[in-house]
């Protein structure tokens, strides 16, 4: 009996607190950002080429460029918040960041927690090869020698769709697979577009062009649930950047390849 007032106070406190949280979650992030003049964007700092720390100790990469472009379009100053792949969504949901531009892929579990914009960057596993071999799909790899890293996602996925006459050479690690391609031991390789970009950036021995996609998981901008105004604005800006060719320039700069037409 004596405890009841205390319990009431506790309950009231909890109510106030939850109301406060609800208020925070429903606040118009776009309006807030426009009021303060800054847009807080969570970006990666340990995931090249999407986000790394440059020699000047400032973050740089695909995601940082996109963050700055979105800030420019919205007329806001961008405040970059370095995050890791595990805390990028909590930063958004607890209101420490307005947007997550951190090579974030979409999946049903994440869609329950946050909303996603339209895709802004390609992220996929595919078949790569020299410009002069015409390959449109898995059927065209018949009779070809394809290098792949044993046990990787692209190994398992490509093995399912490869025609019986395609020879799959499985190597121990990514480096051996790439060396096999660069030295001409295999005609094509299955790998990720980020890996292919890194190879194209570092060596000009033999170029890796995208032939077709095996597994596609592009990157999206993450916004909190219930931020319809912000999401609409971000979609509008990303769409505009795609049309103007500026996003394509970002892709050329960091991924050494144009944006896929269907992104």
């Amino acid at each position: 009996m004596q405890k009841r007032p205390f319990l009431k106070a506790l309950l009231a406190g909890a109510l106030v607190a939850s109301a406060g949280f609800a208020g925070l979650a429903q606040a118009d992030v776009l309006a807030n950002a426009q009021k303060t003049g800054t847009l807080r964007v969570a970006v990666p700092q340990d995931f090249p080429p999407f986000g790394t720390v440059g020699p000047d100790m400032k973050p740089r990469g695909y995601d940082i460029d996109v963050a700055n472009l979105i800030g420019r379009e919205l007329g806001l100053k961008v405040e970059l918040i370095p995050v890791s792949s595990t805390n990028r969504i909590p930063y958004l949901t607890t209101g420490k960041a307005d947007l997550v531009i951190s090579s974030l892929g979409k999946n049903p579990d994440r869609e329950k927690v946050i909303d996603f914009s339209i895709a802004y960057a390609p992220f996929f596993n595919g078949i790569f090869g020299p410009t002069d071999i015409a390959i449109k799909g898995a059927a065209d790899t018949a009779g070809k020698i394809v290098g792949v890293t044993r046990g990787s996602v692209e190994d398992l996925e490509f093995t399912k769709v490869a025609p019986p006459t395609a020879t799959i050479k499985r190597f121990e690690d990514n480096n051996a697979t790439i060396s096999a391609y660069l030295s001409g031991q295999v005609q094509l390789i299955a790998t990720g577009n980020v890996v292919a970009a890194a190879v194209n950036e570092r060596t000009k021995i033999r170029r890796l062009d995208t032939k077709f996609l095996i597994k596609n998981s592009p990157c999206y901008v993450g916004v909190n649930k219930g931020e319809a105004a912000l999401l609409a604005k971000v979609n509008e800006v990303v769409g505009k950047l795609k049309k103007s060719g500026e996003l394509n320039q970002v892709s050329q700069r960091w991924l050494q390849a144009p944006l896929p037409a269907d992104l």
Partner: protein
Amino acid sequence: MAYAFDFSSVLEYREALVDGTLKTLGLTAIGAVFGLAIGILGAVSRAWKLAPFDRIFAVYVELIRNTPFLVQLFFIFFGLPSLGVQINEWQAAILAMVINLGAYSTEIIRAGIEATPKGQIEAAQSLAMTRAQLFRHVVLPPALLKVWPSLCSQVVIVMLGSSVCSQIAAEELTFAANFIQSRNFRAFETYFVVTGMYFLLALAVRQVMIQAGQRLIARRAK
């Protein structure tokens, strides 16, 4: 024991294991024949100081015996195509094994040749034998017979060493093991089976080598 063994997940891939075994044996057989042939040529060149071959073989032996087999393999597989010599993984594997065994057997057989008693050579010379006849009938058979146990061991070592050819995607027995455990995630069982297979293979190869020695050399050496 807390670990639950599941060998059925390995047996599902028995075709890959059988195929890998045959390829390992094939590599070993070709490597042994040509490697020992190089060894005989190298040994006589060095033991009898046949210029300029003795120098060439000396450099070759030092180069191969003082570098790792895996590095030699990578040099051939990744290096030669860059120089414009197209070579597939099997050619690279065979070449590496022949070159490797050639260097080691040169030194083993040389020891046998140098151990030939002087009297035997003088006896052959007094019979007006040519140098080639002398080598073929008097020197080589007893020399090989003396070092045959070492050569058997060296061939077994090369057979076991062929496992590193899996690194250049040559689909021999170790490649089969790596492939299987990347699909069934049963590394312990897979390597358990493959270790046993290598053990049996090594015993078998040694027996074949000993029998070959008896048939081909022991008879002529008497």
